[in-house]
C-alpha cells in the first residue's frame, strides 16, 4: 500500500479534483471530510460501497455520521472520525471572575458582558469569521445551517434567512463589543489568548483539546468541557466541526480490497486502538468505542481529572445532520476574502453573509444548479 499525503482540506480536494479531471493519478482510497462528500458525489467520482457489503457497518456508526455518507440506498464513504462541539472553558478564569457556565446563547452573551466588565482585557471566546468550518459548525447547532441539498441539481442557499440572520446578529454584537476576539483559528495569537486568560473559553470540536494541550503551557489542567449553549433552554444540540470519512475512488482496479480496507479502518476495534491513541487523537464515530466507559473515562492533561469525553460523546449523539452542498470547494476558496472585512471591522457579519449569499448563488447557478433561496 502506498500513502500520499496530499495536504489537508482545500489543498487535498483541489489536488484530487485535478487528478479526476485529468483521468489519471487518482488514488484507490481518499480521505474526505463530510462536508466535501457531495462535491465528489455529484461528479460521480466515488464508488457506491453498498455493493461491497458496507451496509453491515451501519449499526456501529453514530447516526449523524452515517446519514452524511449515504444518499438513499447508496453508500459513498465509510465514516471515520467526528468533531462534535462543546464549550471548553478555563475553570480558573470562570471562578476568578464569578462566572457560571452558560446554558443558552443569551446566557452566553450575558456571561461575555459580565466578563468584560470584570476584566476589560478579557473576552469570553474567539470567533474567527474567516474560518468557514467553525462558523458552519456553530450554524448547524444554532439551527441556522445555510444549505439544503439532497442530491441532484436542486440546491438551497440561505445565508440571509431568518435564523441565519439571527445567528449573524448574535455574533456581530459580541464582535462589536469586543466581547469575543477574532484571531485566526490555530494561530499563535489564538493559543496565546487561551493561555493568558484573554480568552476564557473555546468553542471546541472533540479533537481540539489534544492539539490544544501541545500549544499552551500555563493553563494545562485548568480546562473542562461543558455542552454548547443552546438556542432554547433544555435542548441538547451540537454541531460537527471536521471529522472525516474514507472513500473509494471510481476507476480503481482494487475496488473490493479498498472497500474491505475502509470498512476495517473506520469500523473495527483494532483500527480504533491506533486512531484514538494519544498521537492520532481522532474522535470516534464508531459506537462501540464512543459508548464504552473506558473511552469516556479517559482523561487528558489539559483537562486534569475532568472527563471531557463524556461531554463530547453526548454531543456526538445530539448533532443535527447537515446537508452539505456540492459546491464546498468553491465556498471554502471564496469564504476567507468575503469574511476578511468582519475581522478588520470594515463590514459586519450580516453584511458578509449577504455578499456571500450573492456570490454562492451566482456560482451555483453558473454550475448548472437550480437554486432556491427562500
Amino acid at each position, binding site marked *: 500500500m502506498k500513502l500520499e499525503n496530499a495536504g489537508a482540506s482545500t489543498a487535498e480536494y483541489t489536488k484530487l479534483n485535478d487528478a479526476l479531471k485529468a483521468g489519471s493519478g487518482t488514488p484507490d482510497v481518499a480521505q474526505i471530510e463530510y462536508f466535501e462528500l457531495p462535491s465528489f458525489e455529484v461528479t460521480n467520482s466515488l464508488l457506491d460501497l453498498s455493493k461491497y457489503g458496507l451496509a453491515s457497518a451501519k449499526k456501529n456508526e453514530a447516526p449523524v455520521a452515517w446519514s452524511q455518507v449515504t444518499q438513499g440506498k447508496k453508500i459513498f464513504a465509510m465514516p471515520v472520525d467526528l468533531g462534535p462541539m462543546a464549550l471548553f472553558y478555563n475553570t480558573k478564569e470562570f471562578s476568578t471572575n464569578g462566572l457560571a457556565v452558560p446554558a443558552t446563547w443569551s446566557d452566553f452573551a450575558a456571561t461575555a458582558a459580565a466578563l468584560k466588565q470584570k476584566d476589560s482585557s478579557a473576552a469570553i471566546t474567539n470567533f474567527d469569521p474567516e474560518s468557514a468550518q467553525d462558523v458552519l459548525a456553530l450554524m448547524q447547532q444554532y439551527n441556522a445551517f445555510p444549505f439544503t441539498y439532497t442530491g441532484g441539481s436542486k440546491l438551497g442557499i440561505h445565508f440571509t434567512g431568518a435564523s441565519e440572520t439571527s445567528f449573524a446578529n448574535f455574533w456581530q454584537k459580541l464582535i462589536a463589543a469586543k466581547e469575543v476576539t477574532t484571531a485566526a483559528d490555530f494561530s499563535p495569537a489564538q493559543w496565546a489568548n487561551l493561555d493568558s486568560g484573554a480568552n476564557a473559553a473555546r468553542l471546541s470540536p472533540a479533537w481540539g483539546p489534544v492539539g490544544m494541550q501541545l500549544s499552551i503551557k500555563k493553563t494545562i489542567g485548568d480546562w473542562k468541557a461543558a455542552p454548547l449553549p443552546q438556542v432554547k433552554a433544555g435542548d441538547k444540540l451540537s454541531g460537527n466541526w471536521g471529522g472525516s470519512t474514507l472513500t473509494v475512488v471510481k476507476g480503481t482496479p482494487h475496488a473490493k480490497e479498498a472497500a474491505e480496507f475502509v470498512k476495517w479502518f473506520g469500523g473495527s476495534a483494532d483500527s480504533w486502538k491506533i486512531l484514538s491513541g494519544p498521537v492520532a487523537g481522532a474522535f470516534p464515530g464508531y459506537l462501540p468505542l464512543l459508548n464504552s466507559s473506558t473511552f469516556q473515562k479517559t482523561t487528558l492533561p489539559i483537562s486534569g481529572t475532568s472527563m471531557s469525553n463524556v461531554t463530547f460523546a453526548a454531543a456526538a449523539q445530539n448533532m443535527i445532520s447537515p446537508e452539505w452542498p456540492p459546491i464546498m470547494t*468553491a465556498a471554502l476558496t471564496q469564504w476567507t476574502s468575503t469574511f476578511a472585512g468582519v475581522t478588520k471591522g470594515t463590514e459586519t457579519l450580516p453584511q458578509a453573509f449577504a455578499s456571500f449569499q450573492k456570490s454562492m448563488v451566482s456560482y451555483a447557478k453558473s454550475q*448548472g444548479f437550480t437554486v432556491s433561496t427562500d
Partner: protein
Amino acid sequence: MPTHGRRPRRSSRRQWPGAVFVAPHMLMLALFMLVPTVYAVYTSLFTSRLIGGNRFSGLANYVTVMHSTVFWSGVGRVLLFAVIQVPVTIALAFAFAAIFDAGIVPFSRFFRTIFFMPFAVPGVVASVMWSFLLLPGFGPYAEFAKALGLGNVNFFSSGLILPTIILIVIWEWTGYNMTILFTSLKSIPREVTEAAIMEGASLWTIIVRIKLPMVIPSIVTLVFLNAVGALQLFTEPSILAAFQPQAISFGFTPSLFVYNTAVGSGQYNLGAAAAIVLAVIIGLVSVGAFALTRRRGEAK
C-alpha cells in the same frame, strides 16, 4: 518545381547548423508556450459545469472576465505595484552597480555575491522567510517599528500588504538587476572614463552624465523584464496568503485570480479565459513600452 528547387536547398544547407542550435529552444517554446496557449484558448471557449457537463459557450467566459470587478481590481493592483517596484528596483540596482564599478568598495567581489544572493533564494522561500521576519507582535521588524515609536505595526494589514510585497520583491530582484547593470558598466571602454578624468570630471558626473546614458539600453531591457514579471505577480502573495489569509483576497493579483478560479473553484474554463486576457494585457503593455522607447530613440 525543379528550377526553384535548387536555391532554397542550397541556402537551407547553409542555415542548417543554425537551425540545429535553435531547435531545442523552439521545441521547448512550442511545448511549453505555444501548445498551452492554444489549449487555453480552446478551453476558454467551453463551460464545464457540475450539473450539465461540458459544452461550447463561445465568448461567454470572456464576457464574465470583462465584467469581473475582482479581476480588474487585481489588474489595477499589479499596475500600481509595477509603477513603484520597477523604478525603485532599477534605481537601487544602478546605484549599487555604479558604486561597485567605481572600485571604491573593498572586497567588492564578496559584496557583489552577497547582493546577488537573494536572487538565488526561490520566491517561495523568500516569502516564507519574510512572513516570519515581519510577523506582527513577534518578528524583529515589528519590534523595531515599536522601538521607533510607530506602535504595533501590522505589515500584513490590508493597508500595508502591498508595500510589504513590494519590499520583498525589491529585496529579491535588486541583486539580479545589479549584476546585469554591473556587467554593462564594465563593458564601457576604459578610454571613455580616462578621458573624462583627464577633463576633470567628478565621480558623480562620470556616473550620471557618462556611464548612465551608455547603459540605457540595458536599463530599458530591465524595465521591460521587471514590468512583465510584476504583472504576473503570483508567488509572493500566494505564499503570504497561506500565512495571512485575511490580507490576500481571492483576486489580489490577476494570476491569483486565474489560479483560484481554475484550481480553487473548479472553473477551469473561466480561469483559462482570464489567463488569456492577462496575456493580452501584458502583450499590450510590452508593445506599448517598446514603441515608446523606439520613438524616443528616433527623436535623439
